[in-house]
């Protein structure tokens, strides 16, 4: 029984999914804050939300890079 591989897959799934969800959620939240009209927001909120989305996209691309054999070999 390949328990090691099972745990590897479970761990990799957890790490990748949590990373992407956290980054994206932060992006969503920061966008929401930046969109609040009632209060003044510091100038860095919106750029930071873009940075979150950008990092999220990078994480996905890095994953794809690992998976497509054409690149990783």
């Amino acid at each position, binding site marked *: 029984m390949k328990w090691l591989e099972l745990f590897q*897959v479970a761990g990799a799934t957890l790490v*990748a999914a949590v990373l992407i969800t956290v980054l994206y959620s932060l992006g969503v939240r920061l966008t929401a804050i930046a969109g609040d009209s009632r209060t003044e927001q510091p100038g860095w909120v919106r750029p930071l939300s873009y940075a979150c989305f950008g990092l999220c996209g990078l994480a996905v691309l890095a994953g794809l890079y690992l998976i497509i054999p054409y690149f990783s070999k």
Partner: protein
Amino acid sequence: MVALVIALALFFDFTNGFHDTANAMATPIATGAIKPRTAVALAAVLNLVGAFLSTEVAKTVSGGIIREGSDGIQITPDIIFAGLMGAILWNMITWLKGLPSSSSHALFGGLIGAAIAGIGLHSVNFTSVLQKVLLPAVFAPVIAALVAYICTRLAYALTARHDPETGNKLTQKRGGFRTGQIFTSSLVALAHGTNDAQKTMGIITLVLIAAGSQAPGTGPQLWVIAACALAIAIGTYSGGWRIIRTMGSGLTEVKPAQGFAAETSTAAAILASSHLGFALSTTHVASGSVIGSGMGRRGTTVRWGTAGKIVIGWLFTLPAAGIVGALTALLVHTGTVGFIIAAVAGTAAVVYMFVASRKSHVGSHNAVEVEEAGQAIRFAKKKAAAVSRGNKSKGGRK
């Protein structure tokens, strides 16, 4: 015979496509992130691309489950024909019932049944079956559900907004997740293409090698890759609406943040498993994710009745496809007449199920389901047009 088996394999690929559209596209359709037509088109294109991206898996498709090669047991086109018959029929039945069941399990079940009936019990490597098919089937939904649960909780916790003074809830503004869903569901579709189109490529290559028209140990030829990619893309585009309904609104009501979490978990699990070599079924993972995300959001109920039906469907997949495969193998074994009977009976069954699918579930019934899904989203006005369009296209399909 060889041409017929290849045609049958491509048809299996087609059923695989429309059976599994739901895995990628059910949740974005349910939340209104993508219009149904656009969603299946997107999934089809990504499946096509995915099929070309990686062909590493194709060589090892039946890998060790049926003892082949030097031990003296030769898989003949007859056996593969019988196995495919079992797989296709089971795919059609589960589609008719709207159950998301694993196409790979159907294929393995059919092949195992056919091998037992056609060659004998000793032809199947049961340790390998346990390791490669049964245990992953248990763990895949569990892992996916757990990860999706955690992700859903995180997504909601991170985006929960309260007024710092009064403690009242502010507008949550989680609309961004809907946009995110487009990307995550695309990723699932791509992962599906890299995974599932491979199986048919492997089967066709196996037949070609068995027939002596391809050297053993070589990879799939280009026309095989192209044909399989096309078949799965066309199947995906034709859309398994019944299964989309089960996955999108039958298990739990999906909201964008949940859908995002579920799809991210599905994509991560499939890609991780295909990269690390512990094969998980796309369908098992996707169903597990949807259930997990349903448990993760407060105020959502998971319809355990539907979930139970799906699990029972999974339990039956291997034996049912195996029995059909075995019966077909026995028929084919009797000679040309038996072969013709098997082919005609199989075609008749597929046509019958197709006709039956047209009869039941006319328009109004599915309209309710989709409206329910439409109400689950907040921007009802903007999406009303999309939903009504979706109803129309759904009605036309049935």
